[in-house]
């Protein structure tokens, strides 16, 4: 397959804390790749490198074969327009209504007509059940709703690459499945490349084509979801086997009677 995004020997530190250490990873075009791992290991940092919000201390990131650090001006702009990013904390504009938040990239970047914007926002709102809260501000809606608004804003520009930073955290199981289903269906429909940072195991295994496991600044597993169970690394095994499975298989949790 053709790698769309390539990390080559990428390292990143914040002060004395090394977050990424000589990472080599490829993200295939038109596929869903999930980056999993414990909280705070640098999964979001990887996403921020892809879109240029952070720059690596060492190593190179290639996008479609081009070193992103060497792309500037109009070319960089056109590349950025291929991306959409859904932030972990949603990053909604709290002084704007839900409608304005979703419509912002269409209004400010694509400069579409009001009628076109309304139709597009209406379409995505129907899919994500957001029509009733158009007039509300982010502070007036629940965390789950905010997630859906952020998701709507990420999807509305029909990007080629979508980076999802924990898109289902805080959602109830039904909506969580709906979001994953929507990501998967839309990916099949529009053939976009998706990179998802998530902790939703095993749900993510059903929609992802590739899984990368990040821990201790290194990639411990990179491959198809079916293969991760065969991975012998104890950290990976501990992560993909949740405690409730241990309980049901006769083991007891540490500290429990």
């Amino acid at each position, binding site marked *: 397959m053709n790698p769309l995004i390539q990390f080559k020997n990428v390292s990143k530190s914040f002060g004395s804390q090394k977050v990424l250490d000589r990472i080599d990873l490829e993200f295939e075009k038109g596929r869903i790749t999930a980056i999993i791992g414990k909280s705070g290991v640098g999964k979001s940092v990887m996403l*921020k490198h892809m*879109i*240029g*919000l952070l720059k690596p201390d060492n190593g190179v990131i290639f996008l479609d074969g081009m070193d992103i650090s060497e792309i500037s001006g109009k070319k960089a*702009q056109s590349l*950025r*327009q291929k*991306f*959409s*990013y859904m*932030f972990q*904390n949603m*990053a*909604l*504009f*709290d002084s704007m209504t839900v409608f304005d938040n979703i419509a*912002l*990239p269409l209004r*400010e*970047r694509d*400069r579409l007509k009001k009628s076109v914007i309304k139709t597009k926002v209406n379409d995505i709102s129907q899919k994500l059940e957001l029509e009733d809260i158009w007039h509300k501000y982010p502070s007036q809606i629940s965390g789950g709703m905010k997630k859906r608004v952020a998701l709507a*804003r990420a999807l509305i*520009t029909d990007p080629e690459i979508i980076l999802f930073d924990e898109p289902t955290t805080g959602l109830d199981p039904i909506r969580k499945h709906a979001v994953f289903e929507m990501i998967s269906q839309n990916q099949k429909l529009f053939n976009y490349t998706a990179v998802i940072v998530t902790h939703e195991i095993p749900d993510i295994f059903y929609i992802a084509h590739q899984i990368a496991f990040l821990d201790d600044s290194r990639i411990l597993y990179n491959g198809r979801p079916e293969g991760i169970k065969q991975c012998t690394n104890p950290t990976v095994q501990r992560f993909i086997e949740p405690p409730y499975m241990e309980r049901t298989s006769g083991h007891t949790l540490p500290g429990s009677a």
Partner: protein
Amino acid sequence: MKLITTFFLFLGDRFITFIFELGHITVFFTSSCIRLFQYPFQFQKLVHQIYFIGVKSISVVCLTALFTGMVLGLQGYYTLVQFGSEGLLGSAVAVSLIRELGPVLTAIMIIGRAGSSMAAEMGIMRISDQIDALTTMDIHPKRFLISPKIGASLVSFPLLTAIFDVVGICGGYLSGVVLLGINPALYIKGMEKTVVMNDVTGGFAKSLVFAVIVSTICLYQGYYTHRRADGFGAKGVSLSTTAAVVISCVTVLIADYVLTSFLL
């Protein structure tokens, strides 16, 4: 000897940081200003910001101007009456307001009302990833957030200064003529004789410089909240807001001295 070396090292470090910040803030202002004139013009956002910075500051500027004028009238009267020159009250009030107090006090009132709010708004947007979100959407954050505010400040500061001058002169009239009984014709005539066009243009020039200083410092402090070494999150925003107010007030006073020495 070691103490002296440490002292000079500290001094040098501070000086280099200052030069670096000065360069950075100049680039910040210039790039934001250029984007103000980029097509398509953000006319609606500019008007909205003029409303926020200018129109919403009118009441506080009027109140400050009225009482400043009244105090000037009182102090001026009791000083001038000792020399039998109370007829000069109008000119004394008008000159001090138009040349100095109008631009300076207007700037300080706007720092308190709009400058602190701009710094806090930018800071909160920065720590909640809203500014990064604009970048990821390929919307230039400086064009979208900073340029309209700088443009609105350039429009609002001179207009508010003009309002300050007029209301202040009325305040001086109120205490000097209405309360202390100076001849109203003397107050007005004295003003007419003393105030020249250069005073007015000098005052407006000062207000434009203050607009650049205040808007740039306040927005810069908020926009780069995340670079603060002494505080993150909410604490960082609070420190940036305080720094924005303190630095812009001090810079306005320093710039006032420098400008006055050139204009006189």
